[in-house]
């Protein structure tokens, strides 16, 4: 064979090898098997009389989820007479959860009724995902609920809810929120008296969404105060999140709880139901001192907003000193919104000087959108504000003042420590041209910041006509060593 042919055959072989799908490349271990061959060996092991060999087959085949026989073989292994094999099959299936089809998930759910506790526990470990999977049809996330589908899911789930192992019950409770039909009420209400507090803790929030408010409240009242304070806290939090008139007696009971964190949450629920009754002191203290869940905070302030203006203003004002910035910001929004005449200057200035940017932003937004409600005295105090974001906005907020007042404000800001603020002030002075403006711009040519020097020079040369150019030229001549002088000279030379 000539060299050309040899080379050509070699290249053909090499190309074919490189084009083989990666899954078929026999790169593992010493021997040269394809994935299909390894799977065939695992299937052989699954037919062995030796349970240990079958268990090995279950573990090995799980590593090849892409092979057609894999899922079928693993599901069949769930019926193996040997518990160790069934346990291994459940773990192997959970390793391949993304590949499981809805019909296969429904078969797998039957393992919740397996006589072996470890099989039931292993299945329960991923029960919420399994329930979701079982609820789907191929390509359809929300298939119609047929009797068959309902039976396939409901029966094992109800069995799991009363399993002797609390961890199985726990995962079954977690899965309840995915069902789109009503389960029988009694087994659900039983969960409120489950001996395991972790299950009651998990159950209350879930049950509030699968039972009606009346059923939920009646069941919880009948169960009596839970001995575990975390469960009572979860209950109070759940009720405060979605208070309904039917839950009022339950909220009233919890509002007298021995634990403060339970009481104030229950009080929040009662306040949301009837804001006109006022904010209880303990809830007020919680708002002043604690970091409150954002959703609850939002609802509480919505309720405050629904109050008549005067009561809303008083309540909001009392929360302006809260420790938490989110609370202060929401209180500020409502407090400002209640005014139809300018609010007290001192109050507005306090908000503008708040440490939290979100509070200052609320005050700035108010001043920008309702300029008629901002007293000039407030605006003239802004140059003293400790925060640059506020001082930077001062001139924009003063846009409706007479020109001379704006110029006075700009003059104050020209002495600011921040170059950005001085630059804004300089531009406003150039625009307004108040008495003495040439001197101000000339002084700015000696500003410590080169950016301000450049801005002042640009205003003089580009926007202030012959007089501006004259002032700049004189400055460059009188101070030839100043860095800005050469820039001015260059500009004057290149001017038309």
């Amino acid at each position, binding site marked *: 064979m000539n060299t050309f042919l040899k080379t050509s055959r070699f290249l053909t072989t090499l190309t074919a090898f490189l084009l083989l799908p*990666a*899954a*078929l*490349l*026999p*790169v*593992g*271990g*010493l*021997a*040269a*098997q*394809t*994935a299909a*061959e*390894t799977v065939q*060996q*695992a299937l052989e*092991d699954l037919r062995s009389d*030796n349970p*240990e*060999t079958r*268990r*090995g087959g279950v*573990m*090995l085949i799980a*590593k090849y989820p892409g092979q057609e026989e894999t899922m079928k073989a693993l599901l069949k292994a769930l019926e193996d007479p040997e518990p*160790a094999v069934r*346990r*291994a099959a459940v*773990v192997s299936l*959970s*390793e391949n959860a993304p590949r499981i089809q809805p019909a296969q998930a429904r078969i797998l759910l039957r393992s919740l009724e397996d006589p072996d506790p*470890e099989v039931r*526990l*292993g299945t*329960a*470990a*991923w029960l919420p995902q399994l329930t979701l999977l079982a609820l789907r049809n191929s390509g359809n996330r929300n298939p119609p609920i047929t009797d068959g589908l309902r039976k396939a899911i409901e029966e094992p789930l109800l069995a799991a809810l009363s399993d002797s192992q609390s*961890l199985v019950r*726990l*995962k079954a409770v977690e899965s309840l929120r995915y069902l789109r039909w009503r389960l029988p009420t009694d087994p659900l209400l039983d969960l409120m008296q489950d001996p395991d507090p*972790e299950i009651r*803790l998990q159950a209350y929030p879930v049950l509030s969404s699968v039972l009606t408010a009346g059923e939920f409240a009646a069941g919880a009242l009948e169960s009596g105060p839970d001995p575990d304070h*975390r469960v009572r*806290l*979860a209950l109070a939090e759940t009720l405060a999140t979605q208070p309904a008139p039917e839950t009022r007696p339950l909220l009233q009971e919890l509002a007298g709880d021995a634990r403060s964190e339970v009481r104030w949450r229950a009080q929040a629920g009662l306040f949301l139901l009837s804001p006109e009754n006022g904010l209880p002191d303990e809830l007020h203290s919680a708002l002043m001192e604690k970091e409150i869940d954002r959703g609850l905070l939002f609802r509480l302030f919505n309720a405050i907003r629904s109050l008549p203006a005067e009561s809303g203003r008083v309540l909001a004002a009392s929360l302006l000193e809260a420790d938490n910035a989110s609370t202060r910001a929401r209180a500020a929004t409502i407090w400002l919104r209640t005014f139809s005449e300018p609010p007290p200057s001192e109050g507005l200035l306090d908000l503008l000087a708040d440490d939290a940017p979100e509070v200052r932003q609320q005050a700035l937004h108010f001043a920008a959108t309702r300029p008629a409600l901002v007293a000039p005295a407030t605006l003239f105090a802004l140059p003293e504000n400790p925060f640059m974001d506020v001082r930077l906005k001062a001139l924009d907020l003063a846009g409706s003042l007479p020109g001379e007042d704006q110029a006075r404000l700009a003059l104050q800001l020209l002495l600011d420590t921040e170059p950005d603020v001085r630059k804004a002030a300089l531009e406003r002075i150039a625009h307004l041209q108040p008495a003495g403006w040439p001197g101000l711009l000339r002084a700015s040519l000696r500003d410590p910041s080169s950016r301000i020097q450049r801005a002042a020079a640009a205003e003089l040369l580009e926007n202030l006509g012959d007089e501006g150019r004259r002032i700049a030229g004189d400055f460059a001549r009188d101070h030839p060593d100043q860095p800005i002088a050469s820039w001015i000279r260059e500009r004057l030379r290149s001017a038309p």
Partner: protein
Amino acid sequence: MTQPLPLFPLLCLFLLSSPLLTGQAPDTLAPDDELRVVQLVEGDPLQRNHPAGLPSLLSEIARSTPFAFSPDPVFIQSFADPRLFESPVAYVNFADRSDWELSAAELEALRTYLNSGGFLFIDAGINSEFLREDARLGQRHSFADWEVTPVIAEQMEAVLPGRTFEALPRSHPIFQGFYNRLPDPESLPEAIRDYVVNEKWPRGSYSAMALHTESGRIAVLATPIIALGWGRDRFGRWSSPISFRVRESAEGMDERLRAAASSGPSFESRREDGSRDIIYTQPPHVPAWVQEPDGRWRVFRYYHGPEISEFAHQFYTRLGVNIFVYLLAEGA
């Protein structure tokens, strides 16, 4: 240059006044005596990884040991921040910093800090090869390996020239400083109980690498991620579930795995004694089986479930407590 606080005397003073040595009940420490931990986070601390992790662990240490830690860390963005010297213990999660090239100021500050008695704990400072592509992978997988992530090794060895990271043996007292055993394994599935107790975390040990000072004190400690096991929510429940990766075998498995087809890359991981495992993966980045140094082959199995998660959280919390208690006690 930063003027360091003398950390050894500070720590000794704390310990001398602590109930550990005075015999007082732990809850008699006044809040002013609270120890703070410095935590390095690049950018917004609210965006850090496992945000509930360290505060929960510090609360647990304060609850169960005489060390009255404040649950609130002092956040710094750079090791050059003088607040580094406010605590004898600094903590950083490897993924909370994107660029691990330390500036000259940081190198110097950290050197001064470590030489003055400070400790640096780099959580997720060990990332096996298959996790190095993306720092986020190392936040979810805690793979036992005794090789520090190369950039950490390089930078820390530049902080303490002449010193190199060494594997901490399983028998090291850091793993038994406060708790000296694993949580009760009875709740674990039978199939994995022995493996967890005898191989995965024997006597509560873990893969850890340490950089020692010349005096032999641990200055820097690196482990695979453990903060994922510390966090609790306001109800005291663990913040995130944890699964187990265990090695299993069955009759004839050696022969099967030796010949099995693998479609993912393989990589090596280092054991405590320096020997190597060869790990075969299946896409995406999932260790599938392993060839062990003694020639044995085993398959990786993934176990989920509340009982597993509970055990893992208890273990990681005990491990965290042991590490902090050991570091403080050793420093004294």
